[in-house]
């Protein structure tokens, strides 16, 4: 169970890919509370901490709110910090998520996408993480276990550069509990990529400072402006971190990933594991001569609006698959994409599809139906529910 291998191939679940990523990033403080389907991430990390494989403090707390509060304390003292959670655990952290971002602490967290209750569900959808869209955390949606591990390491690189916290997101069970072969990078190379965290400001008895003081109206807005600027800088930093990662480890993912989209009339937009299924469907339809392509959104916050505009510029129609719903409006990725395209001179028609809530499978058949529906319509539609029994 305890890892000794680095720079080798290993068959691991998405959850354990997160744990190995945190281990390789040499995190110093971990604090977490059990919640399905995340728990395996911190179980492996607690074992690594207890047996000395990972020289980190593991703090067992009484709730997710406390887990994030403990990390705020540790990160304020200059430690590299990590936690993992899911669904209601993330919701309970909400107050502390604002605090971590406002305090400009580069905390990294894994959130296993699980549907919110009631009714209770343990299966995947994105409403938990997307409900935290505006707290000031970067959000990165992963597609494979390898991407999960690599993203943990990249997330520290970016977070510690721009001083904003980062959340990587993986689908419940489809990734969290599914094993596939991944490469565990060599520790020495990771160390070269990710040197120890050197905070500019920290709690230090030899140089005392106060944190969290009251900001009157003539100061508060400037601090918010700086957070937004940091998020804008993060777009460049994610691209840079991804390129540096590629040079050392041979893998890169982009902030978005267009696939066979250059000459496509219709582009499908996906995030998370649906992307892998969609890629197969696109290949199949391309083989049949259809001009369809795919755009994967990986980095959701900061939102890579310019890249999305460029990727969709030549399409006539765009079909967005949202595994989430903003009640009273529609799919959240579709909203963001429409917003990003509104001021573009030539805009494709956008079709918003909501599918796969609460872990319902989004199969190749479902994706083919979405593409066929979009092809058969001349007028765009904001919200199409896929496969709902009415």
């Amino acid at each position, binding site marked *: 169970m305890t890892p000794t291998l680095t720079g080798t191939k290993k068959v691991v679940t998405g959850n354990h890919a997160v744990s190995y990523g945190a281990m390789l990033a040499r995190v110093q403080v971990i604090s977490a*509370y*059990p919640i399905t389907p995340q*728990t395996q991430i911190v179980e492996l990390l*607690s074992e690594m901490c207890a*047996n000395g494989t990972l020289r980190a403090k*593991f703090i*067992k707390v009484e*709730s997710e709110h406390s887990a994030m509060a403990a990390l705020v304390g540790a990160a304020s003292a200059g430690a590299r910090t990590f936690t993992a959670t899911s669904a209601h655990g993330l919701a309970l952290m909400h107050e502390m998520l604002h605090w971590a971002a406002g305090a400009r602490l580069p905390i990294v967290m894994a959130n296993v996408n699980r549907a919110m209750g009631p009714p209770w569900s343990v299966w995947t959808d994105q409403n938990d993480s997307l409900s935290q869209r505006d707290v000031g955390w970067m959000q990165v949606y992963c597609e494979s276990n390898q991407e999960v591990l690599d993203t943990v390491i990249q997330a520290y690189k970016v977070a510690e550069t721009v001083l904003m916290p980062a959340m990587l997101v993986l689908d419940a069970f489809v990734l969290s509990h599914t094993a596939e072969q991944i490469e565990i990078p060599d520790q020495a190379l990771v160390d070269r990529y990710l040197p120890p965290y050197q905070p500019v400001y920290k709690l230090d008895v030899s140089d005392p400072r106060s944190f969290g003081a009251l900001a009157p109206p003539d100061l508060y807005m400037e601090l918010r402006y700086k957070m937004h600027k940091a998020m804008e800088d993060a777009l460049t930093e994610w691209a840079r971190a991804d390129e540096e990662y590629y040079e050392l480890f041979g893998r890169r993912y982009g902030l978005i990933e267009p696939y066979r989209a250059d000459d496509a009339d219709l582009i499908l937009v996906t995030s998370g594991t649906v992307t892998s299924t969609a890629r197969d469907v696109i290949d199949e339809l391309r083989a049949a001569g259809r001009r369809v392509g795919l755009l994967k959104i990986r980095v959701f916050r900061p939102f890579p609006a310019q890249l999305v505009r460029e990727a969709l510029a030549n399409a006539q129609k765009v079909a967005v698959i949202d595994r989430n719903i903003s009640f009273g409006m529609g799919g959240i990725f579709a909203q963001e994409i429409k917003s990003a395209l509104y001021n573009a001179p030539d805009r494709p028609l956008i079709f918003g599809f909501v599918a796969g809530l609460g872990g319902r499978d989004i199969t190749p058949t479902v994706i083919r139906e979405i593409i066929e529906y979009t092809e058969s319509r001349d007028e765009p539609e904001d919200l199409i529910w896929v496969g709902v029994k009415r």
Partner: protein
Amino acid sequence: MAYDLLEEYLRVERLPHVWCPGCGHGVITHALACAMAELRLDPDRTAVIGGIGCSGRAAFLFDMDAMHTTHGRAIVFATGLKLVRPQLTVILTLGDGDAVGIGGNHFIHACRRNLDLTAIIYNNSIYGQTGGQVAPTTPPHKKSTTSPYGNLEYPFDIAQLAIAAGATYVARTTSFDFRDMVKFIKRGILHKGFAVIEVLTHCPTYYGRLNEMRDPYEMLHRLKEHTVPLEEWEQLSAEERADKIVVGELHCQERPEFVESYYALITRMQSQQVKGDGN
């Protein structure tokens, strides 16, 4: 025992339950159903509220109004329910992590407030549903998936915590002592105020397996051997008490109950208002 009445209280179509073979949760749930039957509770005037964890699944086994709430907050859901429907008998099925871990703050305030609720705490010393993580009730040195080399922390004594925080009926028993369970649950329900019945129970799947006690019968016997009834406990020296846990009716007192006080206040203020209007 009113076994023939159990079908009035349990959703028998949901049986057998989903807990692991050898788990004590079914025994506690059975005792609760027996207590309801012996008291001839009206199912239409009874509600069972569960939290999260293995114990949270108990609520839906009862053929009456039931809620499966969020982790740690069952007491708060029940507080709202009881204040709006004071005539209901409201019973909580809580786990140890649920009641004194994530929900610890609500638990002590419910004790302090003395609201007429009956909380049955299924204490298996571990987070079972998520796969065996350390809990605020895990004894020192015991193993869990997040304390693989032994727990460094010290646990809550739930019954003592409840007494200290102001609960007006507190009893503790084990999943071995079926008749005591039924007796204490009945008294807790009849008691006017916040009643806590802590049941020490066995989790062979996680707690047992991780601590070299995977046989449920062995775990049950250990519960029996390590617990001492209150009257015997009082005769023991400090040394003799060292590895023992006291069980029995540990605390019972009369103190104004919150819902009654609340409604009495409204009645009093309204009558004063009427008088005031007359002047």
